[in-house]
């Protein structure tokens, strides 16, 4: 049994220690908002917050996150930044297929938590680990600026 702190709740999981956090979230805790895209931390669809930092849960064994605070897309709107990012995403109709967008939102929230007024270059740096095959990038960039404005 492994005990994890997920979205403010302590959860006991009967999974092997090498299980990536992604699959523990999705298959064991039924938190399916976090997506599988590549399994090698290349696409960012699985991005969650670990102690506030954006991490790729597909390449992170559960054994490495014991005792840490894990936040997923399901509760990211509990914070002011999460709310602002989701509102900006909705205002600009960022999404297309939507599969990568949980990860995009999580990376954007992490960025804006640390940097309330990111430049385009800051956005490129923080978001270039998140692939969007629909290429919604023009709107992702605009929505991050929009969220920054609403948080100012």
């Amino acid at each position: 049994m492994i005990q994890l702190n997920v979205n403010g709740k302590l959860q006991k999981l009967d999974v092997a220690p090498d299980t990536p956090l992604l699959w523990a979230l999705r298959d064991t805790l039924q938190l399916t908002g976090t997506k599988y895209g590549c399994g090698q931390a290349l696409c960012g669809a699985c991005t969650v917050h670990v102690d506030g930092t954006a991490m790729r849960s597909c390449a992170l064994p559960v054994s490495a996150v014991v005792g840490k605070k894990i936040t997923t897309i399901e509760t990211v709107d509990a914070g002011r930044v999460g709310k602002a990012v989701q509102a900006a995403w909705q205002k600009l109709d960022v999404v297309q297929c939507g599969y990568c967008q949980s990860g995009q939102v999580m990376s954007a929230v992490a960025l804006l938590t640390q940097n309330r007024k990111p430049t385009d270059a800051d956005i490129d740096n923080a978001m270039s680990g998140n692939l969007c095959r629909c290429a919604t990038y023009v709107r992702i960039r605009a929505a991050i600026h929009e969220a920054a404005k609403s948080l100012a």
Partner: protein
Amino acid sequence: MNEIAIEDLSRRRFLQGGAGLTLGFCLPGIAAAAAAAGPGKAGEGLAAPVSFEPNAFLRIGADNSVTVISKHLEMGQGTYTGLATMLAEELDADWAQVRVEGAPADAKRYNNLFWGPAQGTGGSTAMANSWEQMRKAGAAGRAMLVAAAAKRWQVPAAEIEVSQGVVRHAASKRSAHFGALAEAAAQETVPTEVALKKPENFRLIGKQARRKDTLEKTNGKAKFTQDIQLPGMLVAVVAHPPLFGAKVASFDATRARAVKGVVDVVQIPQGVAVLATDTWSAKKGRDALQVSWDESAAFKLGSDEILARYKEMAKKPGLTARKDGDAAAALGKAAKVVKASYDFPFLAHAAMEPMNCVIRLSSDGCEVWNGEQLHTGDQYALAQLFGLKPEQVNIHMLYAGGSFGRRACKDSDYVLEAAQIVKAIGGKAPVKLVWLREDDMRAGYYRPLYHHALEAGLDEAGNIVGWQHRLVGQSIITGSPFEKMMVKDGVDATSVEGASNLPYAIPNLTVDLHTPTDIGVPVLWWRSVGSSHTAFSTEAFLDEVAAAAGKDPYELRMSLLTAHPRHAGVLKLAAEKAGWGSPLKAGKAGERRGRGIAVHESFRSVVAQVAEVTVARDGSLKVDRVVCAVDCGTAINPDNIRSQVEGGIGFALSAVLHGEITLKDGKVEQGNFDGYAPLRINEMPAVEVHIVPSAAAPTGIGEPGVPPLAPAVANAIAAATGKYLHRLPLRSSDLVT
């Protein structure tokens, strides 16, 4: 304005615990869907079974909710929103109360009107084929609500107005929400003829109706196939052969079975499937499998060898796809002849959600959960495998996490793989087939590798007098159920589309095609299909010809397009908005900048793009800005058109900068996003999209934004460096000074 008391029957009904109210005409299919769909899908909240009738696209709830049933897959292209916009427009619904559900598989009611008796999504046809159908469905609903109100209030129907989900009779100051009238409306006769609005009265079409799927795709609640979990369900990960055409010789599952969570290991025609209680255990089990493969019938050529063969084939004429005048004679007499050839690699679709499918067998049929793009084809394929009737295959169409053509597999490949696993375990548990990224990338069904050879002849004045275009590449359609419809005299229309319908006024023009049949790599339509390569070769070559003729690329195009006003219209608009002809701001020291233009028709829409690029000294390329003009007929949802074109530009740029699947000795060399890299945000240009106002019926928009990008970029590179690109993807070494 006087206070108008609005009947709120719906609320009362709800308080009484009454059943939902439904419009009778809209119910065909819904009862079946309700039975099939399970919680949260089509048919939710339905009161009672209802007899079948046509036009199964609308349900109005007692709570005033307006549910639009989408016969098409939502894979990102905005279909749900577009179909709902059309219906809600004629219904005069309140957009805030409109929601969308996926239709069940039923080709009788939900066929794609452009595809005859088949249900499916593709070819950028969703809006175009539904344009009258969805509006008529909305108008019929509106007429029945009005008729019901007229009876209830004892007033002439002609005096009743409908707006934003409220039915009103101004003179008697009466009004009612849709929900309050739904039960009575259901008793009305379905009108056979309905009048549709004039465009000047549109309230939603052409305006900024918000996407219906944004909220749940922003908060993680949207359900994709990957998210389906059924009681007792097993997850299957499959060991696939390393070569196309290889088969399992033997396997040892001892170590796989020892992995905790692994429940079963079964051989299927596609490989060996490991079934486990969860995905990670299934993957570990698959990795622990020992399989030896029989490669005796496998395809073993590399992509370099395939290309070399194609170049050899291109030396001789192929089958004629178009012949105007006598191109060979014109080239023979020309004052100047320009020649160029172009190479295009295999491309993977690489949707963010790798292919997957959930199947459950029951006593009376099977249920499928899938981002379903070819309902009818998959239904028949599964029925055949399981020995069922097609109507016993119930498909729940979920959101697809991208597709770009991949989920519309003509051979139902991954769907049948899931079914074979279910069959192999005797249907004892529902199965979710999960392809890991590497499985997805190496499974084939690529955009085919192509080689094009072009020649153009100029007269003394620089006029193009002859054009010869030869293409070599695999057919997507041959051998598929679409062959009869789309292959004529050996020429697959999708191989030459974009080349054989070249719009330019050239008197002598030949397009011919070689279709190799001995290449064992599965190929498939990839967003924009043939135009994904023909737009490049035709439009990049035309710039080379313009240079040889000493003409401006924009002016030359305009002079050859007098018979094609839509092409000329978008070219002019894009050129104007991009400031064609004005000097570009200089780059930094050592940087070269250029602007390029291209226009292309696909899926009955015409798109022109002007790209601005910067080429650094080391040959690295940055596409700074793309200005785009689109003519897609009536713009149903302008914001979605912009969104699709922005995305299409990013998708196309991936293929310019990075996209390439290569084979070595038959083995696919790429497996994940390190080897096959889609565009990232730091590579995305600024995009401007301008829509040509049009009252014509809508044409496609999911794909047409893709084709012009690569040639526009190539032409911009040529303007900056004088170097013409003859192969994709771009190698920086091609641009080093």
